[in-house]
């Protein structure tokens, strides 16, 4: 059995403009099933994926909040947000519905450099 790898999943996309957010979560959950060390990194519009109180039913989309809330049950607790992107959108930490870690650009570079595998969606 290989030792677990550090797999970083990155997304820059808003939650309902494309399937990116959902597709990213599907990879994350599969990584967890394979007992890998998985981390999520949300950049640019991707920070909007974690906004609390989403109401996508009016556009016939499934709410991502409940799936995101279940990430901790899959031992996916490393969720990183680009602090600049959050500020760019005029948002604060408290407006996101699950615990995240804010990173600077330099810290993001280090996170990517320290990951074994980086997948973008």
């Amino acid at each position: 059995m290989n030792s677990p790898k550090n797999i970083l999943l990155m997304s820059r996309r808003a939650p309902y403009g494309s399937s990116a957010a959902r597709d990213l979560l599907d990879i994350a959950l599969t990584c967890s099933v394979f007992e890998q060390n998985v981390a999520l990194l949300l950049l640019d519009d991707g920070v909007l994926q974690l906004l609390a109180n989403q109401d996508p039913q009016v556009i016939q989309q499934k709410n991502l909040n409940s799936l995101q809330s279940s990430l901790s049950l899959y031992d996916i607790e490393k969720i990183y947000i680009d602090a600049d992107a959050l500020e760019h959108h005029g948002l604060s930490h408290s407006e996101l519905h699950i615990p995240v870690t804010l990173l600077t650009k330099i810290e993001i570079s280090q996170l990517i450099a320290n990951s074994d595998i980086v997948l973008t969606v």
Partner: protein
Amino acid sequence: MIFTVVVHASPCQNAAPESALRYCKALLSAGHTLHRVFFYRDGVFNGNQLISSPPDELNIMRAWQELAEEHSIDLVICIAAAIRRGVLDATEATRYERDQTNLAEKFNLSGLGQLVEACILSDRVITFGGQG
């Protein structure tokens, strides 16, 4: 080194699949191993056997088949993404009560576990057409 290539984009409209194909050929000719090509999201359309390119243009589906034939490459299409987009083999066509199949030979439908397994076994995993 062991590589896996991931393709997220459909052919025709996006250059990413052709770039991925050239990348695969380059790494093989440099002596590396290609563990798998995994097609996710709109990348599943690479395995649509009904793709009918003009004769003077590259037919990417056939090019993937030739690569698989020549180098015994595992071409895996994400089954959930494929079913959503109507890329079906006989088993799935029966399951979803469809009259037609269109999955090209040499491509196999399987789950995201094949992507994660490839991440575990590969030294490098390179995504083409991500962030689309």
